[in-house]
């Protein structure tokens, strides 16, 4: 990710809910082929408090289809994406799975990183040790309300890249980009050399371009997942990711 950023490329990380539809692994591969720099795969959880209605619905459907943490991670081991895959899930899944066992299973199945939005810096220690020992990169989130001194600490402990939350709120599409998105990106860029990606409320190619003027790239979740919920498959995902890619490449 860092090398791509240093080469002048804007980074694109689409989010896909694992287990949503029989072809979800093909969706992940299609995102990769269409120009994603990494794919964030959600391991569905019963109580996703950082997620808005779209990803809640996707999680409910995936769980109803029998998705489990082990099945999602194992399936990712079979995906030949050629780019880093990171999982996003809630802490109880990690805690119940066992820190070291969960970290090892990610490595064994070729998953390079993890995002755990309800595990803030304050509670991060035990998982951080297990993840670092196993070689899993934990991407930490920073929020618009995070004070400056804490922002520095988050960037020091984040691995791979840092995830700036673009607005005060849960995941979901918004009609326009929040002013807080660019501010978040600038504040992070001022304190870290890690790639800074902005997510939450980034829904369209235009919004991706707008925030990437300040950021190194974007995470786009609900806008893609909505297309999947509406019946879209790998082709629809590839088309949307392709649009985002072209728009970001057009910035150069």
């Amino acid at each position, binding site marked *: 990710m860092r090398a791509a950023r240093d080469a002048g490329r804007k980074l694109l990380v689409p989010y896909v809910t694992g287990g949503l539809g029989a072809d979800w692994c093909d969706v992940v591969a299609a995102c990769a082929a269409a120009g994603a720099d990494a794919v964030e795969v959600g391991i569905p959880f019963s109580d996703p408090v950082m997620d808005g209605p779209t990803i809640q619905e996707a999680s409910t459907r995936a769980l109803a289809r029998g998705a489990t943490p082990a099945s999602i991670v194992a399936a990712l081991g079979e995906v030949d994406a050629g780019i880093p895959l990171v999982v996003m899930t809630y802490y109880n899944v990690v805690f119940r799975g066992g820190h070291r066992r969960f970290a090892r299973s990610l490595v064994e199945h070729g998953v390079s990183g993890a995002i755990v939005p*309800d595990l803030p810096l304050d509670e991060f220690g035990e998982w951080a040790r297990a993840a670092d020992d196993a070689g899993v990169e934990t991407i930490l989130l*920073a929020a618009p309300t995070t004070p400056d001194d804490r922002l520095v600490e988050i960037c020091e402990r984040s691995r791979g890249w840092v995830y700036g939350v673009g607005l005060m*709120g849960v995941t979901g599409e918004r009609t326009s980009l929040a002013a807080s998105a660019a501010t978040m990106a600038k504040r992070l860029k001022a304190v870290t050399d890690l790639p800074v990606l902005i997510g939450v409320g980034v829904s369209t190619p235009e919004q991706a371009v707008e925030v990437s003027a300040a950021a190194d790239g974007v995470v786009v979740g609900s806008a893609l997942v909505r297309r999947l919920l509406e019946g879209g498959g790998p082709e629809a995902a590839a088309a949307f990711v392709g649009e985002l890619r072209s728009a970001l490449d057009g910035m150069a």
Partner: protein
Amino acid sequence: MALPEPSPDGRFGEFGGRFIPESLIPACRELEAAFRAAWGDPAFHEEYGRLLRDYGGRPTPVTECHRLSERLGVRVLLKREDLTHTGSHKINNVVGQALLTRRMGKQRVIAETGAGQHGVATATACALFGLECVVYMGEVDVERQALNVFRMELLGADVIPVGSGSRTLKDAVNEALRDWVANVETTHYCIGSVMGPHPYPWMVREFQSILGTEAREQTRAIVGADPDVVVACVGGGSNAAGTFAGFADTPARLVGVEAEGGAAIGHGVPGVVHGMKSFLVQDEEGQVLEAHSISAGLDYPGVGPEHSYLSATGRATYVTAGDDEVLDAFKLLSQTEGIIPALESAHALAWVVRAAGTDELPTGAVVLITLSGRGDKDVAQVRELLS
């Protein structure tokens, strides 16, 4: 202080903590600082105490139940939280949090509710303080507690039905947390029990400890000694925490009664949800399971972290009561003492009925039960169940 403060990182033993999105961390820190300052401020205690007395109706009495005692062969005392303004112990907590909301300069309050008691109490305090109030309530609960929905609306609150997940208390908490993530800079989240991220479990227990402190003095005045056993129902566990705070340094045995279909401690597996590490009803993958109880207020798969700790250390014992025996206890208290209990509180009664005369609660023992609320809200539901 009978129950100690948690550690600086909000732990009761291994339980508790602050497992929340980064966006909410500053608000929890702000709340902790505001509570710490207020709780050490005599002027705050003066105002809080005055409001609970002149507005809330405190102190509530302890009633000795002569006919029920004769029936069960144990001496039964009830701490009468049903006699507070709004009809449950929830008022003790919301008055405290409303005062803190004002101290923090926030104008909007959100809350979750199961049975509606905490929602009604929050709407009441918001009306009193002139604060905007939004209450999240699962669709299932909106239906079975229709009267409380109307009551909240009458008090000026917006009640938002929650249709996700099990459509009960757990999901109302999720939705309130989502609202808080979006509006945290202007909004206080008034959590109704000893649950959630630090400082809530500690703060809510402190606000509820008044009922335990009162009950201890009142029991001594009536009996001339501390009770042998102290019993309270446990959903999140706020009335039990407040009660236990008054008796933890006495020889009394402390018993918390969970609903059979939502017994987090009975289930015995630690987990993390709603900002806290505690016992949690969940499957092997860590998915939180739906609770099932006749009582909306106990329909919750988690439990306050301090209860997990008190269970782990053995200072308190946690047991369960099933729907049928709860209904029987509901009728029994109504008919022997002329007191209609909330279905939640009837769980504590049901255990006493079952245990009376056994080693758990020997004949002649003195048992104090916290009657956390009155049953008016449940009458329509019970009528349907009994017909």
